[in-house]
């Protein structure tokens, strides 16, 4: 953000723009960049999802559009979705129906602001970045509930109710899993957390001690539930609920849901990368030219793992879903928290 502001100041000439205007311009630019990143990752990941699904099911996936392996398929899809008729059901609650996709989208867009992609490349280097990300992404639940309610459709309502219950429940193990990391890093600032992991692969928080590794696994599983993907995709089960809370949405409004879903998928992977996997740090010596690419590569690998899990595992039942969360993951996360604390007292020398 500081760099962007400085860039604007240099373009306009020093002193011609007031600092406040510069601040606004910088913030606006960063927001635009983040929105573009979101759109781009949605485009790339829809293609990746279909290709991986194809390979797992012994077929090719999209092959026609674009020269190479259907690479232009998502662009064709996007053009198609833009032309679709925008339908608002007659009995829907119009105001909330229109508002819901935006709430969902804003929730995930806001969270992007605190992700440190590279040293200094972070839209808002907040003191409490980690807490802020959790707070911002909790708005997504409200978007889901609103859409399910406004659609006035029993499938949507079921989907929304399941989604809310699931996301609120899984937020607890998700947050508990990152607490040991905060303990180690001694800070809630995302950049500080990444910087604390520099200097070799054994500095990564996922590998600092066995408890933290389990925490990482808990985080990863809970994050899959957080973004409503198989095996935790109860809110949008095709075979039971048509499409869950976005059943009634079409055209551009549906595109917002779609975009937010893939952006969230990438977001949780980015958080995992920053918090557990060393951020832009890597073990290869002499490879220092593009920290942001290292960061993105790790996050994309995590996304691919999530896609792989989606096309491999069957879906859980609702009661199993809640059982896993409340009776397995939360106690385990608490044990890991206590274990990490004891480990720190026993083996880590404080500076």
């Amino acid at each position, binding site marked *: 953000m500081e760099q962007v502001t400085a860039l604007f100041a240099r373009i306009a000439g020093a002193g011609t723009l007031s600092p*406040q205007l510069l601040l606004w311009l910088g913030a606006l630019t960063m927001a635009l960049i983040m929105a573009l990143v979101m759109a781009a990752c949605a485009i790339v990941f829809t293609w990746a999802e279909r290709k991986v699904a194809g390979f797992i099911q012994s077929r090719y996936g999209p092959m026609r559009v674009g020269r190479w392996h259907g690479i232009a398929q998502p662009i064709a899809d996007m053009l198609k979705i833009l032309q679709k008729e925008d339908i608002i059901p007659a009995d829907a*609650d119009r105001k*909330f129906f229109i508002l819901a996709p935006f709430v969902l989208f804003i929730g995930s867009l806001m969270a992007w602001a605190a992700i440190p992609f590279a040293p200094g490349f972070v839209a808002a280097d907040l*003191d*409490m970045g980690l*807490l*802020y990300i*959790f*707070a*911002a992404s*909790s*708005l997504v*639940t*409200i978007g889901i*509930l*609103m859409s*399910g*309610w406004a659609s006035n459709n029993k499938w949507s*309502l079921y989907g*929304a*109710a399941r989604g*809310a*219950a699931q996301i*609120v429940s899984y*937020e607890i193990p998700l947050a508990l899993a990152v607490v040991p990391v905060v303990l180690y890093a001694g800070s*809630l600032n995302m950049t500080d957390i990444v910087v604390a992991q520099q200097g070799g692969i054994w500095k990564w928080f996922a590998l600092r001690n066995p408890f933290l590794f389990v925490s990482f696994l808990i985080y990863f599983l809970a994050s899959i539930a957080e973004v409503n993907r198989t095996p935790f995709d109860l809110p949008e089960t095709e075979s039971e609920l048509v499409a869950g809370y976005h059943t009634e949405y079409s055209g551009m409004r549906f595109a917002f849901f779609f975009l937010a879903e893939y952006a969230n998928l990438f977001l949780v992977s980015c958080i995992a990368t920053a918090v557990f996997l060393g951020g832009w740090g890597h073990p290869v010596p002499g490879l220092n030219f593009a920290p942001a690419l290292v960061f993105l590569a790790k996050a994309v690998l995590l996304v691919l793992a999530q896609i792989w899990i989606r096309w491999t595992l069957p879906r859980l039942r609702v009661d199993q879903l809640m059982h896993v969360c409340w009776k397995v993951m939360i106690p385990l996360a608490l044990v890991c928290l206590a274990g990490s604390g004891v480990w720190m007292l026993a083996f880590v020398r404080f500076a």
Partner: protein
Amino acid sequence: MFESVCFYLCGGLMLLGGIMTVASRSAVASAVWLIFAFLNAAGVYALLSAPFLAILQVLVYAGAIMVLFLFVIMMLHGPVMNEDLRSRSRWFWPALALPLAAIAGSAVTLLGRARGGAFPAPAPHGFGRAEQVAALLLDRYLLAFELISIVLLVAIIGALSLGLREGRRT
């Protein structure tokens, strides 16, 4: 100047959210307006140099409490949705007059005291950040912290027992 604009914006929108919460016909609209009011309350906390509270306000109220409210409203569905505002209690007009009188009265007080309670500017370094609040919480207010965790534990057990009794009956 910037601070005043932010205050009037956040404060005004928070008040609007509150009024609409009370005045909306449907419970869902009420809940959504209340979320709006709470988000603006987070802005007010940020203006009071309490960033930790601002973030927790969003996390706890918008992310958890209001989701619970919306969830229950949807679960109960039909009968709770719309309430005829005309079948109001005899307290309606006095209650409506209350906030109006308060706003008028406070405005008069404000005008009367031109230099009313300006904050010591600026806030001390690190004021209201997580570290400071945590230090207070685990040091001076440790007993209160432990007690509040017991309150939460009792709330969990209470909510569970209320829910479980229903499960056994059916």
